[in-house]
């Protein structure tokens, strides 16, 4: 049971971070379907940093450097979405999909090239970080506490504050709801949308590194992040684009994911003989059902997905 709690919390942290990322992007008016790709790139940045850092170094340095690298790479990668959808008014669905495919391909190419450069016989796309990963963990009794859990909670609170209590949040939301109105009071819609997308890169990249260090100590980049970016999207929708509800949705969906991993260790669940695929499927089915019943009065930002053109009034 402790294991279930631990997995739930760490998966919920991932989902919460990434969904908040999506939330910022969408509140600024840009649909971010490339979250999966941003996670992959963040994971890559973090994993490479851990690979390069000495495993016996200061724990604080490892945690900070890894997170920072993931965040930076995530933000850098999100620029692809920002340039295309904000400046060139490209189809956001198309760009998001391209980014997801591109991230996995690019990460695999990069890791392979890196591995092969180190050892000509190594053509795998796997990075190991057994020792470095320990820096993130702190054992409290039998419970494996991960610093990322704390980070997720802090960022959740910060996100809520930024979105609802600051000038920036007010302006960001105005751009997602009615960019013409925002423009008319002198808010630079392009800048605000860039900010929204970059924040989604920040949180998505961080979510990526949290995901690949949850439970495992090596990652095969050919696998991408196994749909977690899309699950985060479901969390965001289920959470109705609001940080508090997103946190709750992340916990619920995180629990389903955790169940699929650990249900065999829990007596009564194992006895039910439900295959793990069902637990994996459940979050998506629930989201779909919820969507079917709430979409008519959705709280989605009104102008999301519509490129803003100054000339059009």
């Amino acid at each position: 049971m402790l294991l279930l709690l631990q997995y739930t919390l760490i998966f919920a942290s991932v989902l919460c971070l990434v969904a908040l990322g999506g939330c910022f992007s969408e509140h600024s008016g840009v649909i971010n379907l490339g979250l999966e790709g941003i996670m992959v790139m963040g994971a890559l940045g973090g994993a490479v940093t851990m690979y390069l850092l000495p495993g016996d170094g200061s724990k604080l340095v490892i945690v900070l450097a890894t997170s920072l690298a993931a965040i930076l790479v995530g933000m850098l990668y999100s620029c692809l979405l920002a340039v295309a959808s904000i400046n060139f008014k490209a189809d956001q669905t198309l760009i998001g999909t391209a980014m997801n495919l591109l991230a996995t391909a690019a990460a695999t190419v990069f890791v392979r090239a890196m591995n092969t450069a180190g050892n000509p016989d190594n053509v795998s796309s796997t990075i190991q970080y057994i020792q470095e990963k320990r820096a993130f963990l702190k054992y409290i009794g039998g419970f494996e506490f991960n610093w990322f859990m704390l980070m997720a909670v802090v960022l959740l609170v910060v996100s809520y504050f930024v979105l609802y209590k600051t000038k920036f949040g007010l302006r960001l939301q105005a751009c997602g709801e009615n960019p013409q109105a925002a423009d008319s009071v002198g808010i630079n819609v392009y800048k605000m949308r860039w900010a929204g997308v970059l924040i989604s890169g920040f949180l998505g990249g961080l979510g990526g590194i949290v995901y690949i260090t949850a439970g495992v100590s090596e990652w095969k980049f050919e696998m991408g992040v196994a749909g977690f970016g899309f699950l985060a999207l479901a969390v965001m929708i289920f959470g109705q684009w609001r940080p508090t509800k997103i946190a709750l949705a992340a916990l619920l969906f995180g629990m389903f994911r955790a169940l699929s991993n650990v249900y065999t260790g829990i007596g009564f669940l194992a006895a039910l003989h439900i295959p793990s695929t069902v637990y994996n499927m459940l979050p998506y089915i629930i989201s779909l059902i919820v969507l079917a019943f709430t979409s008519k009065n959705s709280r989605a930002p009104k102008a999301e997905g519509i490129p803003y053109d100054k000339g059009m009034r």
Partner: protein
Amino acid sequence: MNEKAEKKSFLKNPSVQAIMTSLICIILGLLIGYIVLLLINPAGAGEAIKTVLINFLSRSSQAAKVKALGNTLAKTAPLLMCALSICFCYKVGLFNIGAAGQYEAGACFGLYAALAWQLPWPVCLLIAGIAGGVIGAISGVLKAYRNVNEVISGIMLNWIMLYMSNTLLAKVKDPASPYTLKLSAANPKALIPNAGLNAMFANNKTVTLAIPLAILFAILIWVILSKTKFGYELKATGYNKDAAMYAGMKEKQNIIVTLAIGGALAGIGAAFLFLTGYQEWSTTQTSVPGMGFNGIAATFLGGLHPIGTIFSSFFIQSITDGGALIDKSVYPSQISDLISSLIIYLCGFVLFFKFVINNWIDKSTKKKEISKVTGEAIEGGDK
């Protein structure tokens, strides 16, 4: 009309522009891929990008060449079907990102019908099409009656169908591996017949009727969209659903029918791969198969035209296979995935490229011709 004006109108032709922008995307994608190869190892980069591009032609013997071409064609057929699915829906204003899930449904039920029920191939094909169609229709119903964006429901269904396929196909899998049973052993009559086509490709057994059938589907979709009343309605709905409603078209019904047809196309596409015995379904896969997403690449690269997608599908598949042929000890084969995903990304800039081309044409013609004032004045107050 003088020569200059003719040249201008040639370049202004929408089809010509579509082809030009697609070529720009391809060239830029290849260029970036080449730069990446250079960064990894400059020595063999030129050779590697050439291999990616020419694919089967890089094989040594004539027989090996046609056999490799056969393999590429065998995989082009399902890709083309996915691209047609997306293209068809896009014309009606729907982004069928759920083609991947419809493809999974087709694979799942097509294979299950073949392996568990021992049905012959035409029936399996039909079942695959129906399965894909049903999944597409679910997205359609959710869109029409519950206002759920088809992109979101499509994404959810992609993952639901992935896990469902893994669950169901686990019942007909090879006990020793995660893969489903080989059709050639378990139910040969479920294999799509070669109809003599294999002889042309050095007896490549995976070259089947699926390839000409896929091309026929492309032509069929083109005819439906551009020549029929049904296509007129669908496109009108795609361009302006309010006007379509005003004209008495049944928008909701059209959305559902469109996604169902799109789903059926993707589902049949899956059958075109799995019923040729080209490969088996891995019941432990954790990511949505790329076919549906590559279909997006082929759709946009094909200029959103059913006939264009025939060529773009072949190109995408060809560079993917070409990637597998490069020297793996130096370069990762995913370089071709990188290039094709870059091409999709660049397709997002198509409007911008067209704008640049048009600007360039206007400038070059203005220099030499006295510009005539076009009679069509846009009324200032009319937006």
